[in-house]
């Protein structure tokens, strides 16, 4: 094969300069293999002047940055890391579309010098796109350490383009690269590059190119188009189909492909790919002679331990355990501080705002919403710290390698394991963690089943119900069965989604195992920071809006007609209290107001203080100690003591009566709110599951976050504010309700497990899939599934009992 140069290649419509904005601004696209250190170099060049978005309509990220260099403004676009430029992968399609449509002024191809041969395969394909290319030979230190000597001048000569040596991790060579980009832009000439594909294929390329010349609407390099058509590239074929005269060309291509297939006894695209590799191999052997391609590297030696036949799995589980604990256990501390800060903020605002709708909106709606957004932040920061570490060190590929056999059994990828594991902590980081999956189908299935892993917010619901309805001996088994049900359903649904939602042949697993290396602190923190800002900006606003909606639904309408006059009842309590005090205390003591006798007031205060001490954890007093203290008081003030004691008891009674009325009113208010009305409307639907409207209301408001189920039940059952950690009073109330039974409790646990992910998870799902379709689907499928499974459990339970 010989390396030919000709001027045959040309690009039509060069006037459409894509992103080219002014003569002083240059667009530079960074292309390269995954693991070639591309993003590190991008960060070195742009520093903080960068932002991340999405390519329109797809989930592929678009990363852009800016840099001023020698009076020129550079706009850098970091293309997705790819091995090739086929239409089989979305990343590859996006990368090449940027190059052919936006026509960047310069393409910088970053190559891993320690893995030059395969990296050059992409370089050749970039050159075929007929845009100016420069090569950045990265990781030259690693290559040298492995005894690889690369003659970069010869490489530059062979390919006809400039080459610069770099060590991205140590920020070496960045200025040389910028200088080279600047020079190449000034020269404004790209070397035409034509790889000779051999007589038979070249004849067909010529044929197709000539046919394409007749078309007027084409603005891509013709030789490249011809090659892509012969490679049966679906994206290019369907584009040509739309052009006038396109059909004729496609039938010509079809015929040419048929003839080539006969000649080579293989598909033309593979013959073309092999030709590229043959060319690349020849170049490689000339610029880096005498290399032992199978030599053992340090990485191989580390791998001997980390992916060891016996040790591999224990090490993997150890690392996963560590990741889970860092994200959730360590994350719990800052989470608690943040929540406390928010509570204080809410209390502060509460004191300084007049009672009314505004106060309720700010304190319960907005502060509550902001609180739920921010409380995820520590988890997300730590999750991406963990993921960045796993990815950048190279362990992520090993983790997928070790566990793929298991995940494949359910139609998933080895890398799905990490998001699913995180699901046991919280669905929000789990869904965000699916970014490590390159293949969109694997990623979607993982996103859809991850919420079936029982997250920690569901635990308070389970503990409430198991404690109320199951004996301590059974509680563990019941809890365990719910967790197992989630895993089994996830497996089942993954298989179904694979089969019906994302059918077709499986994608290749074929995965590079990049050499282990020490990540830079900078790249890890950039990664963490970027993700967290994205979360706050995109998902955060949605979560906030959703929280306010739920607040509204549970607090409005306000002009409710209550079944009885609560205010009047409270006045009655107040009046009977006054009457009792007057009759039993004021008259015998011959005073008009309790305040008239200062000693009495002081004594009541002391009695109250002693009794309060009983409840305070830090100075808890036993019943005996309290009795002793009261005796002391009685001996000291024997005359006044009985009156003071009586006053104290009347006051206690009044308080508890008033609280009871308040709780009853709050319960009725919730029952008549929009959420409550909705709960009652859906009662016929959830009746077959053994649920009444009270559970309906709770399930609706628990859409905000699943642990809210506990506090809503608390409000409905008139037991007031419920601490999610300690819900004894609610347990008693539930156990006393004839509508509940162990079976209903178990059904509620199962329903809570399966039904729609919480609004925060749906918001993240929307952000991560870049469409409303998937959160809507997730909501529907999981709620329907929850209904079916719970129905089956309830009806079977009823038959058995």
């Amino acid at each position, binding site marked *: 094969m010989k390396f030919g140069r000709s001027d045959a290649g040309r690009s039509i419509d060069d006037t459409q300069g894509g992103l080219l904005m002014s003569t002083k601004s240059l667009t530079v696209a960074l292309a390269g293999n995954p693991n070639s250190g591309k993003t590190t170099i991008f960060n070195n060049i742009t520093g903080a002047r960068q932002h991340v978005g999405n390519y329109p309509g797809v989930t592929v990220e678009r990363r852009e940055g800016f840099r001023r260099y020698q009076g020129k403004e550079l706009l850098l676009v970091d293309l997705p890391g790819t*091995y*090739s430029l*086929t239409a*089989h*992968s979305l990343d590859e399609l996006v990368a090449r579309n940027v190059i052919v449509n936006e026509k960047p002024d310069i393409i910088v191809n970053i190559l891993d010098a*320690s*893995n*030059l*041969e*395969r990296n050059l*395969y992409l370089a050749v394909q970039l050159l075929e796109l007929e845009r100016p290319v420069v090569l950045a030979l990265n990781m030259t230190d690693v290559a040298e350490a492995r005894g*690889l000597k690369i003659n970069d001048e010869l490489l530059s000569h062979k390919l006809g383009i400039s080459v610069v040596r770099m060590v991205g991790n140590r920020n070496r060579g960045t200025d040389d690269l910028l200088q080279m980009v600047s020079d190449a832009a000034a020269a404004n000439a790209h070397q035409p590059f034509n790889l000779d594909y051999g007589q038979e294929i070249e004849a067909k390329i010529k044929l197709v190119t000539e046919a394409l010349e007749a078309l007027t609407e084409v603005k891509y390099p013709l030789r490249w188009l011809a090659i892509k058509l012969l490679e049966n590239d679906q994206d290019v074929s369907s584009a040509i189909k739309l052009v006038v005269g396109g059909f004729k060309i496609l039938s010509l291509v079809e015929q040419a492909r048929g003839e080539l297939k006969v000649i080579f006894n*293989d*598909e033309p*695209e*593979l013959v073309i*790919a*092999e030709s590229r*590799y*043959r060319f690349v191999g020849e170049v490689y052997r000339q610029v880096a002679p005498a*290399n032992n*391609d*199978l030599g053992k590297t340090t*990485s*191989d030696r580390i*791998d001997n331990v980390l*992916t*060891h*036949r*016996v040790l*591999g*799995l224990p090490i993997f589980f150890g690392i996963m355990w560590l990741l889970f604990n860092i994200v959730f256990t360590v994350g719990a501390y800052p989470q608690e501080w943040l929540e406390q800060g928010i509570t204080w903020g809410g209390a502060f605002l509460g004191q300084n705002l007049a009672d009314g709708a505004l106060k309720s909106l700010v304190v319960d709606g907005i502060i509550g919403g902001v609180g739920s957004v921010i409380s995820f932040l520590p988890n997300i920061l730590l999750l991406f710290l963990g993921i960045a570490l796993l990815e950048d060190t190279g362990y992520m*590929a090993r983790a*997928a*390698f*070790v566990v*793929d*056999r*298991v995940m*494949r059994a359910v139609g998933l990828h080895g890398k799905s394991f990490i998001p699913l594991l995180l699901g046991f902590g919280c669905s929000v980081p789990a869904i965000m963690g699916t970014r490590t999956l390159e293949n969109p189908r694997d990623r979607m299935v993982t996103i859809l089943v991850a919420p079936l892993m029982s997250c920690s917010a569901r635990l308070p619901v389970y503990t409430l119900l198991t404690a109320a309805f199951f004996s301590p001996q059974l509680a563990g088994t019941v809890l365990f069965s719910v967790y197992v049900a989630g895993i089994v359903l996830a497996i089942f649904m993954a298989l179904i989604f694979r089969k019906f939602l994302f059918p077709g*042949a*499986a*994608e*290749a*697993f*074929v*995965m*590079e*195992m*990049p*050499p282990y290396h020490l990540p830079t602190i900078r790249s890890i923190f950039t990664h963490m920071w970027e993700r967290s800002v994205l979360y706050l900006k995109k998902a955060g606003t949605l979560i906030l809006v959703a929280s306010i909606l739920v607040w509204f639904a549970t607090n409005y309408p306000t002009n409710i007609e209550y079944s009885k006059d609560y205010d009047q009842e409270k006045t009655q309590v107040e009046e009977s209290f006054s009457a009792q005090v007057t009759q039993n205390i004021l008259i015998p003591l011959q005073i008009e107001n309790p305040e008239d006798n200062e000693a009495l007031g002081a004594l009541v205060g002391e009695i109250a203080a002693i009794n309060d001490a009983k409840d305070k954890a830090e100075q808890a007093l036993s019943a005996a100690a309290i009795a002793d203290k009261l005796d002391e008081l009685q001996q000291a003030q024997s005359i006044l003591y009985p009156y003071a004691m009586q006053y104290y008891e009347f006051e206690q009674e009044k308080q508890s009566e008033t609280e009871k009325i308040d709780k009853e009113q709050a319960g009725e208010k919730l029952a008549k709110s929009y959420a409550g009305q909705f709960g009652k409307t859906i009662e016929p639907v959830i009746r077959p599951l053994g649920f009444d409207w009270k559970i309906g209301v709770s399930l609706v408001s628990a859409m905000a976050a699943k642990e809210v189920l506990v506090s809503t039940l608390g409000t409905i059952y008139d037991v007031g504010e419920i601490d999610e950690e300690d819900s004894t009073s609610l347990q008693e109330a539930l156990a006393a309700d004839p509508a509940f039974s162990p079976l209903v409790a178990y059904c509620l646990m199962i329903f809570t497990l399966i039904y729609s992910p919480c609004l925060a998870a749906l918001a993240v799902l929307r952000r991560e899939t870049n469409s409303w379709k998937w959160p809507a689907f997730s909501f529907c499928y999981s709620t329907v599934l929850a209904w079916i499974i719970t129905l089956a459990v309830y009806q079977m339970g009823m038959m058995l009992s």
Partner: protein
Amino acid sequence: MIKTLNQLGSGETGVVIKVYGSGPVKRRIVDMGIVAETLIQVQKLAPLGDPMEIKVKNFNLSLRKSEAALIEVRT
């Protein structure tokens, strides 16, 4: 001797004769540099026996046995 790649044990080497199969899987294998006359060495099998890790053109690659079965090698 002619075998498929999945039949090789760890440490064994082979030279690629042809890649079978079709579609994205075959294309990916070829894009990763597994083309005729390429030297491959099997590094190891994963703890559960699948996938396998190979060394090719100076880098390490993991692929499932079902994918390795598409690669015909001369040992």
